[in-house]
């Protein structure tokens, strides 16, 4: 990347993320085949990350691939990132969703963050939330920052939680 001669060789960042998505889709597609599960794989690039979703053909059919607390989704995302890394040699920050689980969870967390923000503004005291995983904490931190307040993560996984701080 330092000399102009190498530029034509380096793939564009978007191309690289699309390739990540393709590798992930192959890995997941074959898993669905083996497990005899019906689902389509959608690939996108969002916020400088590959975004891959397993879309259920029948509503609720793939619920167990998310898990009741998203734990299966996190595990599947971890393995999919490793599968991408094995092929590309680069760490992947790919985001996986199954049957809209993350999208629905994000909406719940935005509501949760908004009520915490309101409580902090009203009381002037910090408010601690229940433990959340890394993805969930990021949703809350982003929401708090957008509201012009700040937040911290405290505690040790899997009990790590967000504290919303007064301005």
């Amino acid at each position, binding site marked *: 990347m330092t000399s102009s001669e190498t530029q034509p060789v380096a793939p564009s960042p978007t191309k690289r993320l699309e390739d990540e998505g393709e590798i992930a889709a192959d*890995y997941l597609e*074959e*898993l669905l085949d*083996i*497990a*005899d599960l019906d689902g389509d794989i959608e690939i996108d690039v969002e916020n400088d990350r590959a975004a891959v979703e397993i879309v259920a053909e029948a509503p609720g059919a793939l619920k*167990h*691939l998310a*898990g009741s607390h998203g*734990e*299966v989704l*996190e*595990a*599947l995302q*971890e*393995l999919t990132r*490793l*599968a991408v890394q*094995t092929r590309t040699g680069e760490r992947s920050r790919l985001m996986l969703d199954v049957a809209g689980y993350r999208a629905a969870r994000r909406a719940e967390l935005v509501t949760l963050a908004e009520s915490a923000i309101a409580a902090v503004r009203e009381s002037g005291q910090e408010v601690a939330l229940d433990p959340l995983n890394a993805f969930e904490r990021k949703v809350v931190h982003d929401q708090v920052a957008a509201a012009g307040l700040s937040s911290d993560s405290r505690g040790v996984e899997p009990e790590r939680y967000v504290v919303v701080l007064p301005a």
Partner: protein
Amino acid sequence: MLADALEHLVRGIVDNPDDVRVASRATRRGDLLEVRVHPDDLGRVIGRGGRTARALRTVVGALAGDEPVRVDVVDVDRR
């Protein structure tokens, strides 16, 4: 199906996919799936603090539904 699914999940994350073997054994506590990989890939399959092995167990457990299933990554050098 579970052994095939596990074999696929592991083959995708190692440098030596052709050396991946998954054996299924019925035990009193449900099926036991034993994973064997190339010694160079052992660390990759176990992961930092056992993280990857745990992810494999979580996904296989979800695919198994209600039936109990265990996943064991066998260290070939030691057994």
